[in-house]
């Protein structure tokens, strides 16, 4: 075990997998000498050379599309997109191609590709850099969607993504890159997809989150314990697709209350999916309707005051929980 920041844990995963599998190579803007916008690929060019760590032009569609092509040709590329908002420039490649080629070819062509991107607000990057759209990608059958909240999970899940035979959308929260945590150094450390993690145990309410909102849920749980004598159980989904709803349902059957927290917009978002599944599987156990704590229905503004106003807060989570008692 070593204490690593999230960005270092991600880099360790890339390094170990690239050493293990010569079919893996990386492409993206400024990932070489520069080391990536969030310094995830720092030092990899020096170790693996330009053939395996390739700086690309600013052209997101071909970055992803060439990744798909190379995957068809027997490689297992990882492409990095600077932010989830820029992934929209490659949306056709991701949604109409990567997610569908296996099905459309009747199982003949699969696309083992890892697409990494940053998401999340709170860093004052404005409306075209900071949205949380994990749920959008989870909507598309054919994609797997991974969104770690802790360094160890980041490493285990990213390593696992390279053992997959499908396209994995790997989404990292910008506010988490500097977060520290214990990370196993065993090169065979993998975390299976579709396994939620109970990161705090409690008996009174289940708070469900992923990526950045897990930390918000944990902070809210602390406030609830200290000020309200409410013990919240916090669940980190870790992957949205496949989704481990069983862990959530089991928890709700114990706590009888459920709050879903996410940075995404509420209308048509992933929190609504969780609420529906909890209702389907644990309706008789619920003491209150499932609550959703999400962003305001606005593009993310830049100014700090405005951005805080748009994003959900710990207090919003606390209020949602208390409203259930």
């Amino acid at each position, binding site marked *: 075990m070593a204490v690593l920041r999230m960005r270092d844990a991600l880099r360790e995963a890339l390094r170990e997998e690239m050493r293990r599998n010569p079919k893996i190579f990386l492409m993206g803007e*400024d990932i070489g*000498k520069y*080391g990536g916008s969030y310094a995830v690929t720092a030092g990899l060019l020096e170790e693996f050379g330009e053939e395996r760590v390739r700086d690309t032009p*600013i*052209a*997101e569609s071909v970055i992803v599309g060439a990744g798909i092509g190379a995957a068809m040709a027997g490689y297992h590329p990882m492409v990095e997109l600077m932010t989830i908002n820029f992934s929209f420039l490659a949306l056709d490649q991701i949604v109409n191609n990567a997610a569908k080629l296996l099905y459309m070819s009747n199982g003949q062509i699969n696309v083992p590709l890892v697409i990494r991107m940053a998401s999340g607000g709170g860093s*004052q990057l404005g*409306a075209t850099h900071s949205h949380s759209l994990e749920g959008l990608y989870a909507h598309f059958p054919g994609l797997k969607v991974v969104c770690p909240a802790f360094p160890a999970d980041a490493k285990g899940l990213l390593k696992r993504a390279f053992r997959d035979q499908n396209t994995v959308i790997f989404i990292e929260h910008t506010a988490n890159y500097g977060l520290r945590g214990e990370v196993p150094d065993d090169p065979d450390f993998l975390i299976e997809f579709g396994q939620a993690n109970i990161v705090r145990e409690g008996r009174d309410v289940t708070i469900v989150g992923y990526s950045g909102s897990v930390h918000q849920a944990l902070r809210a749980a602390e406030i609830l314990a200290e000020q309200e004598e409410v013990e919240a159980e916090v669940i980190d989904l870790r992957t949205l697709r496949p989704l481990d709803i069983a862990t959530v349902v089991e928890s709700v059957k114990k706590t009888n209350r459920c709050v879903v927290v996410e940075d995404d917009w509420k209308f048509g978002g992933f929190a609504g999916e969780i609420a529906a599944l909890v209702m389907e599987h644990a309706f008789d156990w619920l003491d209150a309707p499932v609550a959703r704590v999400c962003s305001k229905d606005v593009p993310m503004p830049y*100014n700090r005051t405005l951005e*805080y106003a748009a994003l959900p807060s710990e207090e919003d989570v606390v209020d949602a929980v208390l409203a259930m008692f």
Partner: protein
Amino acid sequence: MATRERTRKARSREQRHDYLLSEAQLEEMYYYMLLARRLSERMLILNRQGRAPFVIAGAGQEAAQVGAAMALERGTDYLAPYYRDLAMNLVFGMTAREAMLNVLGKRDDPNSYGRQMPAHWSSPARRIVTQSSVVATQLVHAVGIALGARLRGEQLVVMACCGEGATSRGDFHEALNFAAIHRLPVIFFVENNGYAISERTEKEMPVPHVADRARAYDMHAAIVDGMDCVAVYQTVKPAVDQARRGGGPWLIEAKCYRLWAHSSEDDDTRYRPRKELEEWAKKDPITVFRERVLADGIFPREDLEEIEAHVEEEVRDAVEWALAQPDPAPEDALTHVYKEY
């Protein structure tokens, strides 16, 4: 500027003739280039003081920006700038105070009222159109603005700007193709500063010049020394005039250099040789302009010093004033998602 009154000495006719610009225009050039640079310097200081979270500036590109913007008709022509184009916006009438409100994300920043990251310029009244952070997207809008003008029967020109890195994007090629098919009055003005964040042009494109790409769209193209404000004006002006008369779009590449790091977040020592930077610093467009007009006897030194003092004062005032302006209130975040009617 126009309000400044000065007495001037008689100057050599031939030399002024050489510039194809009036003395007032040359003064304006120096003033806008210098104002942009001094404002950017103060913005960076505010960033280091923790007062401006993000700064992205155009140091090294002022000559290209001012020369190009001055070739347009203010109040008639449209500008679809990119984030480094502070100097262009100043030429189009944005004030130093407004630029400072913008970098501070203040409530009354007329560019976006604190909503957009700094340097996403906008001023509909001055015909400056806003842009997304996603590079090259303003180029396709420019095509539509030109199309709209044609449909209305208005003779105007749209200048759309970007860096050379942005020309790898599909939007750039789609915009050129569309504009060329319909011979729309768009000047695509590319400020080639040698880098897209850390990536040098060799990694961005196989051709030596962005302007080479015009051939594929059968459109006019020009390459100009972007460190020379006068040369830029002299190149862009005829293109603008021709486009206005219905001669079709232009792709103009200004070769310049990014004298600073990509942004306040960037450490360029990781990827840029110091030697290269030092060589280009010698060609700083503002210093070069100053030395040239002095050597050619266009202005006496005192005239330039007067402009310099004026700029210093304007920047000082802008900072002091903008810092004292109110921040947005939380509820301001919730308006303008849909147009109310």
